[in-house]
């Protein structure tokens, strides 16, 4: 062996452990796909950044998309070579992803926080588990609607003609409204294709100014273009704060329904271990507490100790008013409900 070769070999043997350690300390980057806008801002501050501080070896790249369907579209396109590790989206779309083999099943052995979740945060046919609960609320402009509304039927009064904003079907906010009205009118729910709920839309529909409020349902109510409508609690609460009380939200006496966001691990995720660590953190009590106190989504972790000022602004204290909904069963009959909506509700609002 030549002297130079001997020196090089010996040096590399001595230095190798340090090189390995250095490469092990290279931060791993995981891609987390979730909603854009307000959700991104609040989730980054309440969950992503604290996670990165607690795990300096893992960097989180937040990939924002406007809705769950756009997310599943991108995941379908990446199926051969997934680029995303973790996805937060609506439970009905999570079911689609699970059925198509896009999401893997989360394992409580690897993510012990799953055992801390409420029972309704786990689903038999969905790979992921619930990470946030939201609920439908009535929203109104505090200057335009006096006294404050209490019932969904306040949207049907003559004074509200042309002043109601409802995100109509196929948006699940409109679907939630139909389901609550169906229950109120003694409908059997999925089995009856929510026909009673569709029927009960008759007095509300003529008052509707738009079934497609843009950019969302909160803006036209804050700026006075519309006076009353329905929306999701979390965003409504934040908008109530940022509009200095111009917008207010309440759970109507007829009840509310939960909307569930599920956290999923992508099958074949490039950084599976780091992804599990992130999911573990996102489901943990501290992360759930931080996000609930920031954006008023109800927590899914039963051990999360939320400040009373925040928990009072979620549906947690109104569980008796929550209409139970099997979203996965609803997705199965959505076309038929949509058909009735177009034929029996939209014409009443023309």
């Amino acid at each position: 062996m030549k002297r130079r070769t001997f020196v090089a070999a010996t040096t590399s043997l001595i230095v190798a452990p340090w090189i390995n350690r250095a490469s092990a300390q290279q931060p791993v980057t995981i891609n987390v796909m979730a909603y854009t806008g307000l959700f991104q801002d609040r989730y980054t501050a309440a969950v992503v950044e604290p996670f990165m501080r607690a795990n300096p070896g893992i960097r989180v790249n937040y990939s924002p998309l406007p809705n769950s369907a756009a997310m599943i579209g991108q995941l379908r396109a990446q199926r051969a070579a997934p680029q995303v590790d973790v996805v937060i989206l609506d439970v009905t779309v999570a079911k689609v992803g699970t059925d198509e083999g896009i999401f893997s099943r989360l394992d409580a052995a690897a993510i012990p926080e799953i055992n801390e979740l409420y029972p309704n945060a786990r689903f038999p046919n969905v790979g992921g588990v619930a990470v946030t609960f939201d609920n439908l609320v009535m929203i109104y402009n505090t200057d335009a609607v006096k006294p404050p509304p209490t019932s969904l039927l306040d949207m049907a009064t003559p004074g509200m003609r042309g002043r109601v904003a409802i995100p109509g079907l196929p948006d699940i906010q409109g679907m939630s409204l139909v389901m609550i009205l169906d229950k109120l009118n003694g409908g059997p729910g999925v089995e009856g294709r929510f026909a009673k709920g569709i029927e009960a839309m008759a007095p509300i529909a003529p008052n509707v100014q738009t079934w497609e409020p843009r950019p969302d349902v909160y803006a036209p109510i804050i700026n006075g273009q519309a006076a009353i409508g329905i929306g999701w609690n979390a965003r409504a609460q934040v908008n109530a704060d940022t509009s200095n009380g111009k917008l207010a939200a309440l759970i109507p006496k007829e009840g509310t329904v939960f909307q569930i966001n599920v956290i999923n691990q992508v099958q074949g995720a490039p950084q599976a271990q780091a992804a599990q660590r992130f999911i573990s953190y996102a489901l943990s009590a501290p992360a759930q507490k931080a996000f609930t106190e920031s954006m008023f989504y109800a927590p899914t972790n039963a051990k999360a100790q939320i400040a009373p000022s925040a928990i009072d602004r979620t549906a947690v204290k109104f569980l008796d008013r929550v209409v139970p909904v099997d979203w996965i069963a609803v997705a199965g009959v959505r076309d038929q409900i949509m058909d009735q909506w177009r034929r029996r509700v939209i014409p009443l609002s023309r």
Partner: protein
Amino acid sequence: MSAAATAQGPAQSRRGTTFTAATLLLPILLINAIGFMLPVANLAVISVSEIRSSGAMTGGWSIAKWTTVATDPFYWELLANTVRTSLIVTILTLVVSYPIALCLHRMNGAWKSILLVLVISPLLLSSVVRTYGWIAILSDRGLVNSALAALGAQEPFRLMFNLTGVMIGLTEILMPYMILALLAGFGRLDPRVEEAAATLGAPPYRVFWRVVLPLSLPGVALGSLLTFVLAISSFITPKLLGGGRVFLLATEVYDQAIVTLDWPLAATLSIIVLVVFGLALAVYTRILRQIG
């Protein structure tokens, strides 16, 4: 030998021309194949993919969506509504654009350039921004209703979140395309022909009807085709100004693809839009032949 060489010359020249033409066409053929034919083929494949009621693609094949579209009256109504709305928008756009284009064509000097820039400048703005501008103008508390209220109107007029709003918005948004197409078509309009007609005693309306309009028909046909195709594929303006009451093919494609996740149905409807485009093109070609 000299005769053979003479015969070989044109044949070689023809081969050379063919080769040059093929070489020149190759890039656009490749771009077309990758950018258009391949996605359309993909759409066709998706349209016959099987899907569960939840929205999950099974990987199997089914013509269920084509059957649904063919048998459900809603989709026939949707198609008729889309074609009717696009035709009305095309006619409205033509009616308001024609005088502007004619005026621009007859202008000279700096004013022509300034006005031309003004006509084209809306294209520099996104149609989303322009549509939001229309929301500010047409809403219950907007410019129009405020002016009407000042004149004593008791109730605001419903100018948006309905078909009226969609038509107003689309007409304005598509006007620059129509004007540019008309200006291109006015190239055949020789002012001396108009002068000749006037000299022979034709009143202005007859000069317009018998001379100006026939000579500008190629531009009218081109502008109408362009506007019709853009109107039929418009999605943002009907979505923002339609208020969920105006069902058009493009908005339905969006809902099926992005909200209900029914990709096969969205693909089926997209192919139908393409067929309508093809038919519009065929009508345009026929009209051009008749004019020409």
